[in-house]
């Protein structure tokens, strides 16, 4: 079983409840270790009183205040997820504290809940946030509580497929799970037409299949699709997990990002 560890950033809300339940499902399948983290916000103006023991006392009081609501959330989830330990609780700015925890404790995966929305503004805001731009590991954004029995989709353009497979092999090592490969050519970005373009897509797909074969695995299905990102929505629906990789440098106007923002399945993003 896995020795990987995931950090789940939680709040007292439905999205976090869904994220915990989904992560527990993943942990049962892969042996992934789970640690929840709750960050208590400072006051509205962002002031923290004093220094030294005064500040420490204030922080302790803030943590205590948040503890009850999160403790109730975790306690409720422990019924179906007994391996879920007690949450770490810190006071401070959320993104900074999460980043700090990820860096000092060497996690393999960062997870948080984000309810899927018709308008993708919230999803895109997260992707472009300072936290996400500096994440040292892949991120699992849990949008819905879906069964992994629906299968996993590795989605990418021709150069991304191997990165996707790398993330998949690391997380699902030794685990029987259905995997589909989908290599996309987006006309939004003026992707070239013609046999050369198709040939490059096939090359990308075959390279991904070869990586899987080296680990004794075969995808359930391998496909190439072409079109504008909006027309490809149906190809990526109804999966238990959609796995992709994004380049931090070229994230603006990324058609893969556009597709992921409209997809209601949980998405796991690796960074190139």
């Amino acid at each position: 079983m896995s020795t990987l560890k995931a950090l789940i950033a939680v709040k007292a809300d439905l999205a976090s409840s869904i994220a915990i339940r989904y992560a527990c499902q993943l942990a049962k399948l892969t042996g992934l270790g789970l640690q929840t983290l709750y960050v208590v916000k400072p006051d509205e103006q962002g002031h923290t009183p004093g220094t030294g023991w005064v500040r420490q006392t204030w922080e302790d009081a803030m943590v205590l205040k948040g503890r009850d609501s999160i403790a109730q959330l975790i306690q409720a989830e422990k019924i179906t997820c007994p391996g879920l330990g007690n949450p770490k609780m810190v006071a401070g700015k959320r993104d900074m504290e999460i980043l700090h925890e990820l860096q000092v404790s060497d996690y393999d995966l960062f997870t948080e809940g984000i309810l899927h929305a018709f308008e993708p503004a919230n999803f895109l805001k997260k992707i472009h946030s300072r936290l996400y731009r500096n994440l040292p590991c892949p991120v699992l954004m849990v949008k819905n509580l879906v069964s992994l029995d629906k299968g996993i989709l590795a989605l990418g353009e021709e150069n991304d497929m191997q990165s996707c497979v790398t993330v998949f092999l690391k997380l699902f090592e030794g685990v029987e799970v259905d995997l589909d490969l989908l290599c996309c050519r987006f006309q939004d970005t003026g992707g070239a037409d013609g046999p050369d373009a198709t040939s490059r897509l096939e090359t990308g797909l075959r390279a991904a299949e070869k990586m899987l074969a080296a680990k004794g695995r075969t995808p359930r299905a391998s496909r190439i699709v072409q079109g504008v990102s909006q027309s490809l929505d149906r190809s990526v629906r109804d999966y238990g997990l959609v796995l992709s990789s994004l380049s931090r440098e070229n994230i603006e106007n990324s058609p893969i990002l556009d597709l992921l923002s409209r997809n209601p399945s949980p998405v796991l993003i690796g960074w190139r």
Partner: protein
Amino acid sequence: MRILVAVDQNPYSAHAVRQVAGLAMNTWADITLLGLQPKKRTGANTSASISGRRKIDPSFSKVMHAYRDTFLSHFEGETSPYTQLKYEYELLQTKPNLWQEFYVGRSSRKDFNVYIRQGNPVKEILSQAGQGGSDLIALGCERGQACFWEEWGNVPQKVAASAACSVWVIKKEKDIKKILCCLDHDRVSQESLEMISQMVTLHGAELEIVGLTEGEGLPKNVERKLDAILKYYTAQKIRPWIELVKISSLESFISQEGRWGLLALWMGEKSILQKAFSRKTVDRLIKAGESSVLILR
């Protein structure tokens, strides 16, 4: 549950009867089958028209019998909750150490009544629903550009707008493979949750629950309700998809995502759907949409 199925003589009504029979198989509801007799069928020179007394049109009566048989054919003999009065001899204790044999009639466990009414169909349907204490009115119509009743026009829209109870407008021959439920308040009855659960099970459909928002996110009470609903359905082995949609984008969302077989709207007193979904909008959804519509009250 008490279901009123309002029918005329057209194929969409026959489809509605079959759909309700499927639901009743799982819910064992009390059923009222209400036929609205077509206009001007008594004939100009019949003794009925001369005397001023209306008579039942024999051909419509046959249609109603056929609907009854169709409905009851979904239930098997002895196990049917609608099996009528059954007489048999039974020994019953009348005094200590004394038993007497009686010829006893036992009625069905659930009611199944057939009525025919004449007149304004909307008025008659609402009147029957009120008298019978119906929880759900079900009626069919054609799928596509208009959801009319032949002869009477937009009966389904008017019933949906005016009924005090839930209304299910069943579009003919549209398979229900996906069900969309829209929620914006926290007063959701157990009966309505169960009705949706039955629909999902009956049709093997996927369920999506839309939380309607006015601003950035859901109000806390609605979020808590959504969490409770998610847990309820998960316990029923149903995994609904959840999506947040701004009220202002709802019509656009529904028209773009027109892949649902059934659109369910939880419209309670506190519902902003009542304001956002004006009567005109509900009419439009029922009339022009491809999906069947379930107004949950």
